[in-house]
């Protein structure tokens, strides 16, 4: 049998590895139930942090859709300072280390986006330009931009907002620039 040249052999092995990888991806992803689930407790609208360690979900609390945060490594529920009220909550979104949680809340009869900074404990209420009610939000991994879906004269639009003057970056590695603020 004729031996293949080394470069052809490398190409052959790469092809086999890629095929096996694709087959594995198609057949058997490794799945588990998110922590915090129970028979009488449903979870909806998941958002995972960039580092994959924190999960936000919407659960019913006394009949009101409320955002809840969990550490996926320990399964522990993480405290939120400003999001025990202003329900219903919807469309959660997390930054890279989960420092920022953006979610749509209700204030009076208006919908409003709110970003909670879990390091400083501050809440940042954000209203889209034109005073429109937000429908869905997505926070950039570093927290410096946000995409907001709004309804404008009967059609859906997506508006991009610059948050760099309001939030400091939450980048991989989790370097904190400010000192945590203890007071509200």
């Amino acid at each position, binding site marked *: 049998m004729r031996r293949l040249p080394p470069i052809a052999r490398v190409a052959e092995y790469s092809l086999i590895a890629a095929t096996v*990888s*694709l087959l*594995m*991806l*198609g*057949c*058997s*992803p*490794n*799945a*588990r*139930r*998110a922590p915090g*689930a129970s028979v009488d407790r*449903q*979870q*909806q*609208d*998941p*958002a*995972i*942090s*960039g*580092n*994959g360690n924190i*999960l936000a*979900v919407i659960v019913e609390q006394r009949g009101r859709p409320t955002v809840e945060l969990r550490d*996926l490594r320990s399964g522990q529920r993480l405290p939120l300072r400003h999001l025990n009220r202003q329900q219903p909550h919807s469309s959660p979104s997390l930054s*890279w280390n989960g420092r920022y949680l953006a979610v749509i809340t209700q204030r009076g009869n208006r919908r*409003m986006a709110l970003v909670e900074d879990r390091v400083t404990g501050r809440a*940042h*209420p*954000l*209203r889209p*330009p034109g005073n429109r009610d937000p*429908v*869905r*939000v*997505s*926070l*950039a*991994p*570093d927290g410096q*931009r*946000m*995409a*907001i*879906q709004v309804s404008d004269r009967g*059609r*859906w*639009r*997506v*508006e*991009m*907002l*610059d*948050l760099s*003057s*309001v939030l400091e970056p939450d980048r*991989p590695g989790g370097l904190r620039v400010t000192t945590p603020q203890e007071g509200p």
Partner: protein
Amino acid sequence: MIAQSRKEKTGGRTSLLLWNSLLLFTLVGGCSTEDIRPLQNLNSALDRSSDARRDPTLAQEWLATLSSRGGRERIELINLRNGTPVPTPGLNSADAQPVSISLSGDGERLALVQQREGRTELMLYRRSIGALQRLDINPPGVPRQVSLNGDGRTLAVQISRSGRWDVDIIRLP
């Protein structure tokens, strides 16, 4: 003397009024929304390239949305540096209706839920190789919302099983 007393009273009232105004301003300021700036050039480019958009998902340099044009909705990936859509070969097919999308932080992977031939499918698209693959759900269920982490290796999926909503965490190769 009477005139001086009146003057002091008036001065006191003015001072009280000023303090009240300051307190009111602080209270209202504390409850008001923050000053955020719309990215005007980007928003104009988004408006120009579609009739309508919904379900945004942001990566560091990318935005994906479900965008409508000519009555048809498709997944569109936009380069945030210049606001222009980029080609995504193999992602949109004529017989599939996207339901939910989520980008990985680097914009390389996109998880989606789509309806095709009466079925609701959980899919993963890898941009660099232009491959769209179906992901199995075990135990079986109907997927709804998806969220990918930064490197696109961990996926959170909202799934309906026997009429109740759960969230599964799926590790991807």
